[in-house]
């Protein structure tokens, strides 16, 4: 079985994909992943996910030009400042 390994570097940080281990079961994957991704204290936690359990999305319908959905060049900062003032939570 292939287990995908996700690694969290510090508490509170997101888990990021670190690599994979090939192991006959979860116990072997546990032991091997510890050694490969944690033995130097580089990880706070690991997630081991059987590759078959990953639901992958690769197909994208892009039949129309949907560029207008992007927010490029649209500044939210000024709106946010005014909204905060209104709510009395201005951060200065």
């Amino acid at each position, binding site marked *: 079985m292939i287990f995908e390994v996700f690694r969290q570097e510090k508490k509170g940080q997101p888990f990021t994909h670190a690599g994979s281990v*090939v*192991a006959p079961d979860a116990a072997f994957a546990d*032991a*091997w992943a510890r050694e490969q991704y944690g033995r130097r204290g580089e990880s706070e936690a690991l997630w081991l996910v059987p590759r078959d359990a990953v639901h992958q999305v690769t197909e994208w319908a892009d039949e129309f030009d949907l560029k207008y959905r992007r927010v490029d060049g649209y500044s939210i900062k000024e709106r946010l400042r005014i909204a905060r003032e209104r709510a009395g939570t201005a951060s200065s």
Partner: protein
Amino acid sequence: MPGNARAQLLLDLADDELILGWRDSEWTGIAPTLEEDVAFSSIAQNEIGHARALYELAAAELGTNADALAFDREPDEYRCAPLVELHLMDWAHTIARRYLYEEADRVRLDALKASDDVELAGLAAKIDREETYHRLHAEMWAGRLRDEPRFRDAVEELWPYALGVLAPEQRAELARRVGLEPVDAKERGSHTSELAELWNEMTEVRRSAPGATW
């Protein structure tokens, strides 16, 4: 405990860990899978780290240093149990040894942790925290290979050697843990020719430049 008995006990332990670490490191690069290669090499390094800490305690007792104890003695001065020096380049035997050694080491460490020798008890507790992972690894493999005749034969073959890792009064506990009947042990104190071969390789760099600081 008189000073020389304490130093001798420390050398028994340190030599076991150094020589087994060295033997296990012979699998680096050629273990059955890449993942196991990384894990097995890491365990081998840990054992050598334990040896260093134990040699440092012994060195303080004997007025020398850890490197001198590890590398400057003659092969027949090493105190290691015959189990750890065997050259076993067969995975069933290698795992059988790891499994038996970890079980024996647990019995020994439990006794040391309860010792009145605060320094040694503290070091044993520290070592035991790493051994938890070694046991996890050994038990996982032993569990997987349990029904393989090659593995069972290897355990049986190495069983008298495993008993020799422990003091006589600790052997019944080991037999209980692994579910085997006590037999005559391969005792510590004499060596096979395999240790001399290992020693030649292990001390080669050190002997090439006596007195050098690394």
